[in-house]
């Protein structure tokens, strides 16, 4: 039975075992449950554990408790002190109401965001006339107030083809989780996903400056270059496309180099918006080559041939056996 606790914890019980385990465990005493849980053994995966931030939460709870107590004694002083600011706030409020300033303030500071899910793409036109073609599972966020005479800035996650309007003396800044790109007017392809361990940028025309703040690195890119930036060590590799290298995400396909089966599955889910349900792991075999991003049948035929499997498309799911 104790093995079953571990399997339950790791979600590894099949449907009959799961049903039986739940019934049996529900009938156990607290002591029996405790012994079963102890038998799971150590859970070593505490790499993501941020004990400092948990501690900060505890401290802030402690402080808010303390300040609540402290406030009790200061309540009368507080009431007296509150009267004056209220008068000031009321007058400012009437001033704002009469000038309608509040309404515009809301509009220009409101965050606008455009997102795509798996299997979707979209076109966005920004206030300065720049256009962005969003690939699957991508998001752009900006405020009208961040498009002004001195700067244009957006936040980005995912992959997209950017055509940035050239306005002299007004740089366009794209911030992602890991890199910051400064543009003066150009066309380029950016691929920066929070889930991926590298950022990929392909510059078609113009010039851009790429910064990696975490590693204090800056780099300028020339047209026809592709840069790969590792999030693990900040290393930047730049390739010239005419020297036999090319960007991995093209307009109609994605190229893999020695990638595992699960990476291919992720790409299929991303570009076609399907759920892939795959039988036993095929991760021991590596794949090098292109997979189309606009032809599901062809993609599945490639997977069948390379991994010697059968695929079946049923509704929103792809079964691989």
């Amino acid at each position, binding site marked *: 039975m104790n093995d079953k606790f571990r399997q339950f914890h790791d979600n590894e019980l099949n449907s009959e075992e799961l049903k039986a385990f739940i019934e049996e465990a529900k009938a156990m005493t607290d002591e029996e449950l405790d012994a079963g*849980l102890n038998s799971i053994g150590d859970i070593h995966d505490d790499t993501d554990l941020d004990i400092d931030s*948990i501690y900060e939460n505890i401290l802030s709870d*402690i402080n808010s408790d303390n300040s609540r107590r402290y406030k009790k004694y200061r309540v009368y002083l507080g009431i007296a002190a509150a009267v004056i600011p209220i008068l000031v706030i009321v007058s400012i409020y009437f001033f704002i109401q009469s000038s309608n300033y509040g309404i515009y303030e809301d509009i220009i500071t409101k965050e606008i965001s455009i997102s795509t899910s798996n299997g979707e793409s979209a076109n966005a036109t920004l206030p300065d006339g720049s256009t962005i073609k969003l690939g699957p599972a991508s998001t752009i966020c900006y405020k009208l107030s961040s498009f002004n005479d001195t700067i244009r800035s957006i936040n980005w996650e995912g992959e997209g083809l950017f055509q940035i309007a050239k306005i002299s003396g007004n740089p366009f800044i794209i911030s992602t989780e890991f890199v910051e790109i400064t543009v003066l007017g150009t066309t380029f392809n950016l691929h920066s996903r929070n889930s991926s361990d590298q950022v990929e940028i392909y510059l078609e025309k113009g010039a851009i400056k790429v910064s990696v703040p975490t590693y204090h690195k800056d780099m300028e890119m020339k047209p026809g270059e592709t840069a790969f930036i590792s999030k693990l060590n900040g290393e930047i590799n730049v390739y010239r496309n005419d020297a036999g290298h090319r960007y991995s995400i093209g307009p109609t396909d994605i190229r893999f180099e020695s990638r595992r089966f699960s990476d291919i599955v992720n790409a299929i889910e991303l570009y076609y918006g399907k759920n892939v*349900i795959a039988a036993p792991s095929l991760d021991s075999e590596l794949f090098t080559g292109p997979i189309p991003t606009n032809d599901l049948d062809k993609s599945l035929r490639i997977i069948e041939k390379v991994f010697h499997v059968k695929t079946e498309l049923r*509704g929103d799911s792809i079964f691989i056996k």
Partner: protein
Amino acid sequence: MRKGSIKAFNAIYRLYVRRLINYLSKATVGTQDAEEIVQDIFLYLWNHRENIDPRKSLSTLLYSWAYKRRIDIFRKRLSSPIYEDYLEYQNIISSKDNYSLEYKDFLRVFNKIIESLPSKQRQMIVMSRLKGMSNTEIAIQMGLSEKTVRNGLSAGLKILKDKLARTIDWRS
């Protein structure tokens, strides 16, 4: 620490935090719930520091609080509706197609579907289906009215069930 030394409290925290999270996360899905319980435990420890009997072992005290919370959260998890959802789904699949879907894979499909929901609805579904929390508990934790939770949850669950059904219904 009994005298209010935050330095001593910090030392105790660092000594026990990893062990307690490890102990608690044997009963939870992921470590987030375990982290929240640990926060409660240390806050309780601080607030009751003057009543702690210095002759008794601190470790026994911390673990006795954690023991109770761990059993509670595990029993709640055993009753969480996600397992019934899975068994029901698995029954439909096997009767239609004789295909056996592992719980892990079901969870993957489930997570993918809820990812596409608005964040409030997603939170509600996670609390209700995965953590087995009642509408009242969800309402308190999210600072919403029970009615809002009930409505949000029923709309979210409808989308979830429709999408699950569509994933099953290959022939449509």
